[in-house]
């Protein structure tokens, strides 16, 4: 079984995951919590730490055009995410900015590919793998749980799949992207990595009432 410290890149909260009984699998250049002893029920409510997974971002007046040239199509609308054929998700945050999230199994090579290129004037890469932690809150109770700490109406019938809310969650500036796993509501939550430990415990506190617990990447993938 892999250890987070096998790799130079580590989740911001790998210690919390270990103490929560996580077992790790190496994925890309880091170890991700793939399952837990006493794992939460992903269908009801669980939270997974995907921080080790590949992701990147681009800013600048030409950012969206440049990505399009690389056959990475952002949505025509701001605050809407676009699923790419290879399973990665492109979140358009503004006319001048987008975020690219790998698929859960990190099969997609888009992030790697884009990061390898050197865009010219007007398109600037942003190391979102380092600036943001990446959690996923999934389960039928996920909307109710989020409403305890988020002031935006993210209930499924008001917040269509792949909608994006750039908002304050538990008083932390967060990007929330709805990306259901099959029929189960799921939300990507990305925010300042240095506040990952704070946010992790704040969300777990809000989850307690629904018996929500950490879940591994495996059960998240299994939701499909």
């Amino acid at each position, binding site marked *: 079984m892999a250890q987070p410290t096998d790799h130079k890149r580590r989740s911001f909260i790998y210690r919390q995951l270990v103490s929560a009984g996580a077992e790790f699998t190496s994925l890309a250049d880091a170890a991700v919590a793939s399952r837990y002893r006493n794992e939460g029920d992903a269908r009801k409510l669980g939270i997974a730490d995907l921080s080790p997974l590949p992701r990147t971002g681009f800013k600048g007046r030409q950012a969206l055009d440049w990505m399009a040239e690389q056959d990475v199509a952002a949505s025509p609308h701001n605050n809407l995410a676009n699923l790419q054929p290879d399973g990665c998700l492109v979140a358009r945050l503004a006319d001048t900015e987008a975020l690219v999230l790998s698929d859960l199994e990190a099969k997609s090579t888009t992030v790697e590919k884009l990061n390898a290129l050197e865009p010219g004037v007007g398109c600037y890469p942003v190391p979102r793998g380092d600036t943001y932690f990446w959690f996923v809150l999934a389960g039928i109770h996920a909307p109710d749980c989020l409403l305890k700490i988020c002031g935006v109406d993210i209930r499924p019938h008001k917040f269509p799949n792949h909608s994006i809310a750039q908002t304050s969650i538990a008083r932390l500036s967060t990007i929330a992207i709805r990306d259901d796993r099959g029929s189960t509501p799921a939300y990507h939550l990305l925010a300042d990595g*240095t506040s990952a430990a704070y946010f992790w415990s704040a969300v777990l506190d809000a989850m307690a009432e629904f018996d929500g617990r950490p879940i591994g990447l495996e059960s998240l993938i299994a939701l499909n």
Partner: protein
Amino acid sequence: MRLAAPFGSLIDRDAPVTFTFEGRTYQGFAGDTVASALAANDVWLISRSFKYHRPRGVLTMSGDDGNTMVQVGQEPNGLADILPIHDGLAVMGQHYSGSLVADRDRWIEKFSSFLPVGFYYRAFFKPKGIWNFWEKLVRAKAGLGRVDTSTPHGYYDKAYAFADVAVIGGGVAGMAAALEAAKADVEVVLVERQPMLGGSLNYTRIDVEGTSGPALVQELLGQLRAAKNITVMTEATCTGWFTDNFLPIVVANRMVKLRAGQVIVATGAVEQPAVFRNNDLPGIMLGSAAQRLIRIYGVKPGQRAVVACYGGTGYGVALDLLDAGVEVAAIVDLSATPTDNPRRQAAVDRGIEVLQGYGLREANARRDGAHLAGVVAAPITGNGELADEQRAIECDLLCMSTGWTPAASLVAHAAGEVSYAERSGSFMVRAVAKNMQVAGAVSGEWVVDAAIEEGRQAGAAASGQDANPVPVPRAPDDRPPQPWAIFPHEKGKEFVDFDEDLTVADIRNSVAEGFGDIELVKRFSTVVMGPSQGRVSALNALRLVQSHAGRPLEGARGTTNRPPVTPEKFGHLSGRGFEPVRLTAMHDRHVEADAEMTVAGAWIRPAYYGADREQALQDEVMCVRNNVGLIDVSTLGGLDVRGPDAAEFLDRVYTLSYARQQVGRARYVLMCDQSGTITDDGVACRFSDDNFYVTTTTGGSDAVYRTMLLWNAQWRLDVDITNLTGGLAAVNIAGPNARAVMEKICSEVDLSAEAFPYMGVRLARVADIAARLLRVGFVGELGYEIHAPAGMGEALWDALMDAGAEFGIKPFGVEAQRILRLEKGHIIITQDTDGLTHPHEANMAWALSRRKPFYFGRRAIAAQMKRGLTRKLVGFTLAEPDGPLPEESHLVVRDGEITGRVTSIVRSPTLNRPIGLAFVAPDQSETGQSFSIKGHGGRMIEALVAPVPFYDPENSRQEM
């Protein structure tokens, strides 16, 4: 005594509950409140009044008065009449000395004639300062409940909720409104503070048989169950209205913040007490309170009753009393002539004597003074005037059904208009805010069918089915206006405000003092300022103030109604108390290394390592000076400024110029605000023609980032700014051995002084981690700042500690860094500068470009320099190096005048003597000049202006 079913709709007789009050054990049923359970046990004395410690008991049974305040466990000022009981609940009376029954503070009332309204303004102030003595006595007697400082921080949380239509109040009007709104495909939330819907129809008697009310409720409940898109919240209290229909709703330990498109206020009305001598005795309650006791809690409210009323409501009360087996001695009907009302007829038919056109002169207490023994009624001869002839009636219960006032707080919070109307003899909602509707009793509609119709129309309007509703076609309101139920008594004690023990005379005297405006009367007399916030006193207070001030009642407003509607627990408002924390990627390594952590805004950083602070600082400093140290500087801000205009942009934002800065070099950055005050600094590293990486102070990055974004939104330069602060972990490895350590793990770049000189910057892999290398140093030794991906920060730290192990590398904290930089003469912004320091004062004229048309503060700094310098920051040492050490912020004083202050000082471990920075007058700022510092105990300490840096003035060490 308990009544048999069907009385007691809310209690579960199969679920007995045991609780204690004042240490005695009582039994009630699930569904009971403390007050109803006590009443069932014939306990009527629940509390003591604020000023005179008069006995008080049930008044409204709806939480609208402050007469039943009790201490419940660690909760002070709980309202016994709405507080549910549960097994083991321990309730105590409050605000007495001795016991609730035998309160030793009853003596205070004996002196009431010496304690007129605002008495405390009249005395206790001569001689000067004596109030400090008297206040202790007053304070001891004031206050109500006790706060227990051992009370644990309870678990309270919050949740957001959303609705197209929110209906506040679950009476029939509210139910009808919700049902109608739900017909359109909208989300409806119906909020009711009681455990069950139905509102007043759960207890009032609207017909002779007393059956049509409950039937109506059942019918509506059926329809509600059928409706899909209505969420019903019971035992949920909406405590206020806030901008854009934002409604806090308290449910159990949670505050739900409901955002509604439309709000329908259907909060009903609050019955108002009559004002007469001793009207506050236990046993005297509102008619609606007696009916709540009978119908909801199945409690017999007394043995022998008198009902004071007008119109039909009170007759309904009388009929309920009869049905409950209470003898009704008489009905005192305040209206001059009988109204034609079936309930009245029924009461008369059942043999109740009606004293038509009578008012209440006084109530008399039982010998122990704790309960009602009888009332004295007399014919009304004018507003508040009674004939001499009178009837004394024995009774242990007086039900007051003499008037109502709309529960219009939410309307008022939303800046609607609520004012007095002669037509109804009460307050009336005259106008409501947009996106708000009112329905039912709150809007003055008493007739049940019409209230339901009004609710329907409000619901239709709110759900967009009916844009502009036509006013409800009301049956012509033939009811007489509410009577003037205020009967002054020569001996007083006619209470207008029960919370504050204020009588008719107190209000009259306040007006006589010259306070003609109700707002001023409130401030002088404290009327309506108590726990019930005027819900049962505002109407009578306004009537009295206007009449005594000779002002018209029609259209008169009460005092401003402000949130909350009913008191909110601090815990509910606070919720979980989210306070984000930022930790660097190496945080756990510091903790493992036994670091003493310190809070720096959102960040938590190592102050020093180890238990012994003095030793730690000494060791850390010397390790950097003589060997090599490592500090986590991830809290520094890091901004990427990219694009063809990057240099031009920095030129406008910072005071130096960057157009000609070479790639691969770093240059100092200094930022001022528009008034010329220094606000931030750092370095700008040019990694390519159109890419600068700019650092900021700890905690400065957000402000700098926002400022940059704001200005470029106006300048429209071709740059992009990205805040990488959290994304980059950063360390500074410093000391003579720094290069040797680095060479072990960074082979990509030639680290020699020639190839990679001081103020050079490079991109290179360190321990196989892609990093930005900055040869800058705050501490004045050979050193490298390494900025690397945050995800790899811990690995970077480990690699450097491992590589440095053979040299004895040590981590050092912020405090050692402060010493090191001071030895080197570097300033720390906000420590060595303040809210007004401009660069010249801080000796930084060198950092001000004179060839740029603009940078923040340029004009302001120039203008201030025309006045000349008023102070200057200098380095200093002490004339007696081994003498007492002044502290930071000790003053520089000359001839009694403050000319400056010490901003930084330390006994330098390296130089082994005191060194510091201080603001002094310009004419004391020449090197070698001496000035005086006012040290501990005012002792003057001589200091000498010294050149900075104190350490390595030639900079040979940091540039080696």
